[in-house]
């Protein structure tokens, strides 16, 4: 059947390679190398970061955006910055099950990483923003999060000569407005990209970059475990929305699309880049380890009308799960320290 041709190719590659592994081959680069090469091709890194036509990149915009991102005065209280939750030392998350907001309020969802958001189609766990520019003002203005009236933020920042100058340089003639604040932050966020991971080195041809177990995990990821149905491409996400059958009362995208059964309890598929540095997991941080996440997928989640049609019991063997975990650990890059900019006073 034509509709299954791509999966068929992956399964053929899987069968061939699985046989090689069972037969004691030295590894995935054995008889099924052509199939693996085809799979690898789908995971090659892009050559450039995409920027929108109405907010093209300049170094000045990135620099201004970085300042705003790290400036706690962007919040109503003056002590929460974007980086408070999107901490570069924690893979641009906060490591908490659920985020902390204004006045230490516990929020209902986990802080998503901002890694690789330049390639996103929709933003927030429920996809309610269609651009990073639209997203940027959301947490700033939300009373539970940064609690800052955007109009008053403009007034506050205009009092700082340094910002007035930087905005004029970055967005000449556009002024210091809520729109240019959002555009600058979005520009900086687009530059936050996960670096070269061992997996990338393997895709580029270094056979020793990852273990044989991880290579087998990559194969399972694309075949039996069905992870690549959604965690596809170099960023390991297609940006799709699914109810994974995970216990939650949160409607997710269903709150935006109440008539669509499949969107109830559905959340955006996150990137798997640097995933082993971003525990705990899921939209509500209720799974402590990646192993717990693999177990959820293996069980197939709660069978309910909204559950994604991609979810089903997988029948993974213990060694399959270990291989998947080994593979996911190869997606973490050593990105090094991030410089916090000096802020205008």
């Amino acid at each position, binding site marked *: 059947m034509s*509709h*299954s041709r791509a999966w068929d190719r992956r399964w053929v590659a899987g069968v061939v390679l699985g046989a090689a592994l069972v037969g004691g081959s030295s590894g995935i680069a054995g008889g099924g190398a052509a199939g693996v090469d085809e799979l690898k091709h789908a995971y090659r890194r892009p050559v450039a970061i995409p920027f929108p036509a109405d907010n093209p990149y300049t170094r000045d915009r990135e620099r201004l955006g970085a300042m705003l991102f790290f400036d706690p005065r962007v919040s109503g209280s003056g002590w929460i910055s974007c980086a408070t939750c999107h901490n570069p030392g924690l893979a641009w998350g906060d490591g908490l099950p659920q985020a902390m907001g204004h006045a230490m309020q516990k929020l209902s969802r986990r802080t998503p990483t901002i890694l690789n958001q330049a390639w996103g189609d929709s933003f927030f766990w429920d996809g309610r923003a269609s651009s990073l520019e639209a997203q940027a003002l959301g947490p700033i203005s939300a009373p539970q999060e940064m609690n800052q009236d955007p109009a008053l933020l403009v007034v506050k920042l205009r009092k700082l000569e340094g910002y007035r100058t930087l905005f004029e340089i970055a967005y000449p003639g556009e002024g210091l407005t809520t729109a240019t604040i959002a555009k600058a932050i979005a520009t900086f966020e687009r530059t936050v990209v996960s670096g070269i991971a061992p997996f990338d080195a393997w895709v580029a041809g270094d056979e020793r970059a990852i273990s044989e177990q991880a290579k087998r995990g990559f194969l399972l990821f694309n075949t039996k475990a069905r992870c690549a149905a959604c965690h596809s491409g170099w960023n390991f996400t297609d940006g799709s929305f699914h109810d994974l059958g995970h216990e939650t009362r949160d409607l997710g995208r269903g709150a935006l*699309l109440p008539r669509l059964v*499949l969107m109830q309890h559905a959340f955006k598929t996150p990137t798997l880049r640097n995933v082993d540095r971003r525990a705990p997991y899921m939209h509500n941080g209720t799974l402590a380890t990646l192993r717990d996440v693999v177990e959820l997928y293996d069980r197939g989640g709660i069978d309910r009308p909204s559950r994604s049609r991609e979810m089903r019991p997988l029948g993974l063997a213990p060694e399959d799960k270990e291989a998947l975990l080994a593979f996911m650990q190869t997606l973490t890059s050593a990105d090094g320290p991030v410089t916090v900019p000096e802020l205008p006073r």
Partner: protein
Amino acid sequence: MRTSRILALAALLGLASAAAAADLRVVQRDKKFAIDRLDIRVGDTVRFVNDDEVSHNLYSVTPGMQFEVRIQQPGQSDKVTFKKAGVALVQCAIHPQMNLRVSVAP
């Protein structure tokens, strides 16, 4: 002229076509629509075909032109008849990068 326009569009985009507008097909493949816009007339019927490896869930929330296609498993297809003039944005609830603009002329 209208028929030729539709046939030209279908041929250009590699879509299955038929002599009658009522048999227009829009294919979903690799998490994309085969086209990003479609010009039709009131009363035309479009068959949405899931020729993908994953499920899709098409809908439109354009005022006056709302509809939802059932959850389509790979290989399934469904028809939608456009009864009002206007521009409907058809999206997949699962895959937000899938957008099709359907212009329905009176």
